């Protein structure tokens, strides 16, 4: 059977696994943004937190993903459900680019703009939401884009601890020494990553500053 026929024959399972993968990545990105953006903002408000926060995120990034999944297995609430475990680990991975880009985006707002805003009597909250965040959108989006593509890749490893997704095809294919199975996982994963990168690139382009 050719690869194309294989894909056609198993298209339902492949789509199913793709949906599982998208779900893993989607939830992860929602959490990572919900946690990472506020942390990024916090770092700009309290600079002394920059080292511990960015440092921790950096450490999480440095641990090999498979090892991180393994570390979390014995944790009671997490180890019991592999998808929970995977989402926690994947979120930790996605945090660094998001925190870093959020804080950098805000820090790079023109000093004069910030001073004028403050001097005119805008509260810290108004400055954050009306000035700093809107001006940081491009940088933040770049971080989100990086984090998404990263997460799609690492999520394939999540199958090793039972979280499903496209990585499962890859691992099964390896166990059965079956190339077609491996590709059934690898190709959609690569396409997902490229697709997400492309779409987020469009969003970035659409929201770019006017010059």
């Amino acid at each position: 059977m050719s690869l194309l026929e294989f894909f056609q024959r198993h298209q339902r399972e492949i789509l199913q696994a793709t949906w599982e993968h998208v779900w893993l990545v989607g939830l992860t990105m929602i959490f990572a943004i919900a946690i990472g953006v506020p942390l990024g903002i916090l770092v700009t408000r309290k600079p002394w937190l920059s080292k511990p926060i960015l440092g921790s995120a950096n450490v999480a990034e440095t641990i090999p993903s498979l090892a991180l999944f393994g570390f979390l297995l014995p944790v009671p609430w997490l180890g019991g459900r592999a998808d929970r475990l995977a989402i926690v680990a994947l979120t930790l991975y996605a945090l660094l680019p998001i925190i870093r880009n959020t804080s950098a985006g805000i820090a790079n707002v023109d000093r004069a703009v910030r001073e004028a805003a403050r001097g005119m009597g805008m509260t810290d909250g108004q400055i954050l939401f009306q000035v700093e965040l809107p001006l940081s959108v491009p940088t933040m989006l770049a971080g989100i884009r990086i984090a998404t593509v990263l997460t799609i890749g690492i999520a394939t490893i999540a199958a090793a601890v039972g979280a499903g997704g496209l990585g499962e095809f890859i691992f099964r294919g390896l166990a059965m020494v079956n190339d077609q199975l491996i590709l059934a996982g690898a190709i959609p994963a690569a396409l997902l990553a490229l697709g997400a990168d492309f779409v987020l690139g469009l969003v970035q382009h659409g929201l770019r500053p006017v010059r």
Partner: protein
Amino acid sequence: MPARTTHKDASQPVIEFRNVHFSLSGRQLLNDVSLTVAQGETLVLLGRSGAGKTTALKMINRLLAPTQGEVLVEGRATTEWDPIALRRRIGYVIQDVGLFPHYTVAQNIALIPKLEGWPGERVGSRVKEMLETVGLHGGKFEQRYPSQLSGGQRQRVGVARALAADPEILLMDEPFGALDPMTRGEIQNEFKALEGRLKKTVVIVTHDVGEALVLGTRIGLMEAGRIARIYSPHDFVHASDPMAAAYMAQLRVYDEAKREK
């Protein structure tokens, strides 16, 4: 000549510094500064870089607070005011203007009125009024973005924005410093006329003697964190003390160089 000339209005000064000291990281930036600014006055703080002019200015809208002494605005210490309420009553113009790049000219000017909850129509007409006031006529500026304006136009929008909510007090920190001399001269004259009409209390920081003479009703010469002396423009021109004289000499050199050409 006494160090202080009393002004016509004998009631409470709008701005008052009482023995203000300010230090930061071990450096003394303001050293026992005392002055008053009466309603309708334009006080120009003149001095070299590092003299403490901007620091003093920032005391007024509480971007900085004194380490000793107090600054009173409308009779109340800045430290007693709610900082947001204080700043909303004071127009603030800085050298780099700091227009929001992601807002149109109209949105920039409308900023404080909107924050103060003015009804939409009033905001709209006020924006148009302000643009006319600062000399940006024709209604084609409203939808432009700051990046699409020239330096002089940006500066004018900055002033419009500062005046939009009709504050009693206007603070300006080297507002025209970034402009070329031609534009600067134009704007200074226009501003002078505006001053006359608006009757606000203005404090301007500059290191440009010419500007001080054109715009100020009083000139406060600052050096090393202190007020050396406060002059009327006339007195400043004919001053005999070394510092003022040096400034005037500089101005004459410039004048002569111009004439020689």
